[in-house]
């Protein structure tokens, strides 16, 4: 909300500079920021008078203006339709740089030279208005810099208002806050109008059907007003808060709304049927046309203001076109009401329509400010439009809104804040806030909350007021903290961080992807799942929660490949979700980590060859990783999935743990336009964390030497290496400590359908030195088995 220091000063004396005010308001919870006017920085735009306007001989739409700055006269070519003799206007002199970067130079426009420019508001950066030149007040002093002139109009301060403070939605409310700081008196505008003999109640009756939705409704009639346009001060004032001027009546109601925070509505009285206002709920599907010309279908939760026959306004949101003030309006009906915040919020949400009025009603207006606002607008209308004020206000108040009675214990203030605060000071503050002190003793104080502060309902609300006015920045920080470490261990967090840092040490870059994805991306899973769908997504591309981290990683890969970063090792750790009717949130959430590699694993370098990505790089990663989490040898199985070529899967203790493989190249090409091979690993982090074991028992180092032997064989290509290894281990028995597979060769010198493989065998026992003979015996047995069982040939 924007307040201007010049208006604020109408209601309170301000002993502060704008900067001091900004700081003081911020320290009491009204986060303020001075709005710098773009004009402040402009030099060389001065106030000039238009002495004469001549037709441009060569262009119909242009005119030649003779302007005077008081010390100089010049000719300026102007294209604005509204330029006229006698106006005071902002004139940009030669050499001036305007906010849009334009520098003024002498120019010839259609053969006539122009020595400056009369500016429109958009050219000065004041607004986006380019309908004509900016016209200043006729009293504006000639030759004065525009920035200096406008600075006399007060400083605008933008307050970022929190939703608990409806009382500050107006300059009077802000002035009230300032008065607490300055001890100054609030200056409330005086009411001067006189009532006529005719009585309002003879003209209007109010009937409230829904008293919860509308606890209070006040109305008054003013006869014989003259509809006209508003005076310049009012137009400017409304413009300053972003409201367009309509006519003197509508402008008056907007003015009072902005001034007091109480929304008002004015009807053309002659269009109100049956001298009656009925406040009732709409019917489902009931159609109305609001002031903005839009037809809207209502629901039964929306409150309507009706006359004896028809709806005339959506309560607290917007009036209807059928009863609006027109130039022909003679008599008017003023509405000032308290509508329940929930009702108005529901209505405003349902209609998708938020207005200055609904903004205030849904936060809660002052139920005792209703009639004051009627009097204030009456006064203003008499001033602006004349007329006869009917006597009295029809004020229906069937459901009293009582402010809270709250007991505040001084001990409690101390307990929450941590320091003692002077009791008398506390009481004084409560009074300044507008509370009525009902009871008070050494231990506590009981107050009646001000009617404009619906947020003050409980003891703690008042403790907040104490700290707010005292100044949070003045409260000392505890020098010695009482918090103590907990005995609980966060093993999960530590394990997750361990996982991340191990992946990082393998050379992987951590990435984050959006968890919101398209429906198509949710299909990338190893088993079919039902994805979780958002009811109100930003777009169809982001309408589902991800069911896998892999599409995000492929997307990241594509982003990088398109930018010529083709060697990638990336990972993401995060949650995936899918529909699960048995869960409290109807969603199963699984913590996953996924890896993607493509291209070379090292940067190109002098002196060595780089390794290239393949499936076994990922297999190595997951084998080493699980080993570091205390999980003994993973077993892999071949799996099938349409998105993959060569897919492997692995379980840990019967729990599905990971898949790894090469992404199907046709899929990559058609869905992602990626032509290079991509390998991914998808793993369930929860399974890893749950199964992790860190009970390491040290194994003594061997004392006796080992004997190493190689087994080099030719064997049919389709025999898996693991099978050969198992045979060797079995025959090697207790003497064989380790079997390392280290060479695989097919091609030249090897017959088709065969492969040459080499294992390195390490024989060693803990209690003695092995003899060659023993090892030879085992080697012989191994060779026999390989020959007989696997049809292997020794090399």
């Amino acid at each position, binding site marked *: 909300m924007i307040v201007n220091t010049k208006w604020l000063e109408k209601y309170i004396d301000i002993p502060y500079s704008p900067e001091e005010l900004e700081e003081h308001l911020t320290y009491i919870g009204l986060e303020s920021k001075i709005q710098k006017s773009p004009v402040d920085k402009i030099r060389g735009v001065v106030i000039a008078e238009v002495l004469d306007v001549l037709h441009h001989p060569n262009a119909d739409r242009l005119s030649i203006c003779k302007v005077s700055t008081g010390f100089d006269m010049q000719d300026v070519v102007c294209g604005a339709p509204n330029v006229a003799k006698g106006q005071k206007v902002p004139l940009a002199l030669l050499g001036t740089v305007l906010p849009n970067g334009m520098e003024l130079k002498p120019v010839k426009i259609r053969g006539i030279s122009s020595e400056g420019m009369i500016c429109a508001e958009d050219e000065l950066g004041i607004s986006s208005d380019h309908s004509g030149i900016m016209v200043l007040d006729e009293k504006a002093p000639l030759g004065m810099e525009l920035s200096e002139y406008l600075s006399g109009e007060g400083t605008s301060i933008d307050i970022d208002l929190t939703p608990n403070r409806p009382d500050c939605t107006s300059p009077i409310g802000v002035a009230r806050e300032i008065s607490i700081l300055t001890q100054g008196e609030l200056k409330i505008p005086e009411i001067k109008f006189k009532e006529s003999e005719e009585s309002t109640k003879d003209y209007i009756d109010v009937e409230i059907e829904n008293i919860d939705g509308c606890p209070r409704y006040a109305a008054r009639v003013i006869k014989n007003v003259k509809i006209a346009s508003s005076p310049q001060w009012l137009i400017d004032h409304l413009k300053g808060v972003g409201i367009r001027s309509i006519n003197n009546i509508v402008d008056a109601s907007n003015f009072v709304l902005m001034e007091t925070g109480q929304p008002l509505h004015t009807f053309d009285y002659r269009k109100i049927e049956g001298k009656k206002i009925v406040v009732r709920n709409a019917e489902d599907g009931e159609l109305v046309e609001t002031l903005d010309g839009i037809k809207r279908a209502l629901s039964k939760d929306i409150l309507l203001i009706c006359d004896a026959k028809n709806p005339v306004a959506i309560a607290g949101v917007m009036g209807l076109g059928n009863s609006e003030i027109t130039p022909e309006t003679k008599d008017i009906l003023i509405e000032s009401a308290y509508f329940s915040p929930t009702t108005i919020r529901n209505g405003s949400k349902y209609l998708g329509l938020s207005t200055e009025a609904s903004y205030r009603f849904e936060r809660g207006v002052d139920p005792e400010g209703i009639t004051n606002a009627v009097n204030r607008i009456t006064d203003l209308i008499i001033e602006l439009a004349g007329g006869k004020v009917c006597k009295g206000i029809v004020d229906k108040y069937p459901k009293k809104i009582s402010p809270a009675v709250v007991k505040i214990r001084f001990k409690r203030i101390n307990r929450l804040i941590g320091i003692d605060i002077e009791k008398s000071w506390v009481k004084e503050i409560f009074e300044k806030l507008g509370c009525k002190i009902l009871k008070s003793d050494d231990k506590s104080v009981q107050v009646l909350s001000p009617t404009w502060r619906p947020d003050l309902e409980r003891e703690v609300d008042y403790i907040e007021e104490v700290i707010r006015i005292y100044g949070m920045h003045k409260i000392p920080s505890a020098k010695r903290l*009482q918090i103590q*470490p907990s005995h609980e261990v966060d093993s999960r967090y530590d394990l997750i961080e361990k996982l991340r840092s191990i992946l990082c040490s393998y050379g992987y870059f951590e990435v*984050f992807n959006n968890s919101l994805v398209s429906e198509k991306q949710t299909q990338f899973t190893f088993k079919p799942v039902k994805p979780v769908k958002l009811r109100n997504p930003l777009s169809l591309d982001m309408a589902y929660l991800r069911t896998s981290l892999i599409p995000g990683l492929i997307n990241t890969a594509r982003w990088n490949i398109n930018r010529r970063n083709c060697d990638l090792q990336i990972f993401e750790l995060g*949650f995936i979700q899918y529909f699960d009717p048995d869960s409290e949130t109807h969603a199963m959430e699984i913590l996953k980590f996924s890896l993607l590699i493509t291209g070379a694993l090292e940067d190109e370098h*002098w*002196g060595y060859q780089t390794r290239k990505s393949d499936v076994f790089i990922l297999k190595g990663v997951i084998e080493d990783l699980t080993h570091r989490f205390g999980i003994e040898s993973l077993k892999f199985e071949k799996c099938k999935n349409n998105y993959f070529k060569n897919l492997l899967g692995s379980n840990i203790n019967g729990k599905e743990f990971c898949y790894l493989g090469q992404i199907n190249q046709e899929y990559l090409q058609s869905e992602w336009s990626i032509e290079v091979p991509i390998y991914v690993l998808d793993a369930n982090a929860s399974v890893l964390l749950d199964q992790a074991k860190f009970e390491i028992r040290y194994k003594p180092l061997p004392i006796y030497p080992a004997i190493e032997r190689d087994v080099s064989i030719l064997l049919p290509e389709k025999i898996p290496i693991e099978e050969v290894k198992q045979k060797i281990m079995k025959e090697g028995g207790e003497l064989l400590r380790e079997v390392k597979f280290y060479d695989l060769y097919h091609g030249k010198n090897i017959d088709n359908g065969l492969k040459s493989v080499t294992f390195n065998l390490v024989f060693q026992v803990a209690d003695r030195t092995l003899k060659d003979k023993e090892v030879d015996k085992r080697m012989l047995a191994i060779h026999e088995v390989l020959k007989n069982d696997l049809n292997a040939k020794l090399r």
Partner: protein
Amino acid sequence: MNLLDRAEEVRFQFKKDLSKVNIDIQSVEDFRLEYLGKKGYIPALFREFTSLSVEDKRKCGKILNQIKKEAENSIDTLKQRLNSIGIDEDFFDYTLPGKLPRLGHLHPVTQTMNEICSIFREMGFGIEFGPEVETDYYNFQALNFPENHPARDMQDTFFIDDSILLRTHTSPIQIRAMEKQKPPIRILAPGRVYRNEAISARSYCTFHQVEGLYVDENVTFCELKGTLEIFAKRYFGKDVKLRFRPSYFPFTEPSAEVDISCFICGGSGCRVCKHTGWLEILGCGMVDPNVFISVGIDPEKYTGYAFGMGPDRIAMLKYGIDDIRLFFEGDIRFLKQF
């Protein structure tokens, strides 16, 4: 045995020749071909080997392999000398780039979250996690956001259905922790959150939070200030100044926003702090009694504080990043910088 003898001879000759090889590309390659080339001495030994009896093979195989490996290693060494020393043996080009270890990088937001968490963990906070898909109860109602209250507009929400949504903050973890644990409760709740906001340089539909909660007897606003002051000084430097100013969050009362003096300009005003000298970095307050009531903790006996901050925003401030989308693009050139 013949083959073994010849093998030893080859080995001996190799060593002799090795010491005489000129360090130039041609000589090294000729030397390699002489011993290891298809027609070289060592492959010749292997050819002979295939015709041996099984027993002889067993005796010879290992030695032959050893000789071959030795020869290969020696030639590799020669090649390395060729590469690094060039032709002039006395010339050592120390300006050649180092062969870098290839390590990955943690995401800058992960790094920031870890740094934040580790400071609070030292003080005694433990870490709790919670689901990203939440119920309206945990995300709003239990946190004293009444239904149909304008406070809900402070957080644009993605809904799954009427009562299930994507958490807009990690505060539901606080509720779940208070339901589970008895005071004293001191937890940190890091995690990913969601807001239904259009994606731009300044906002993204998902980002991260770290929240803290401490509930015990006699937890005061002074304690809160002291805790956050330690954090800020540890994280941003010991000269940093803090500014507490009243604000509003439904789940705390009193509530405050905390600014730190701008660490770019030191408080004199710059583009980053929008010429205010202050940077808003976190929200905090004393736990609202209504929140205690919803989790069954007696607000007369216990008090508590809560705070929350956005590591994405803090990382942006710290590293001078002006577009939040960079965090979610995964551009390697960006990630490499952290």
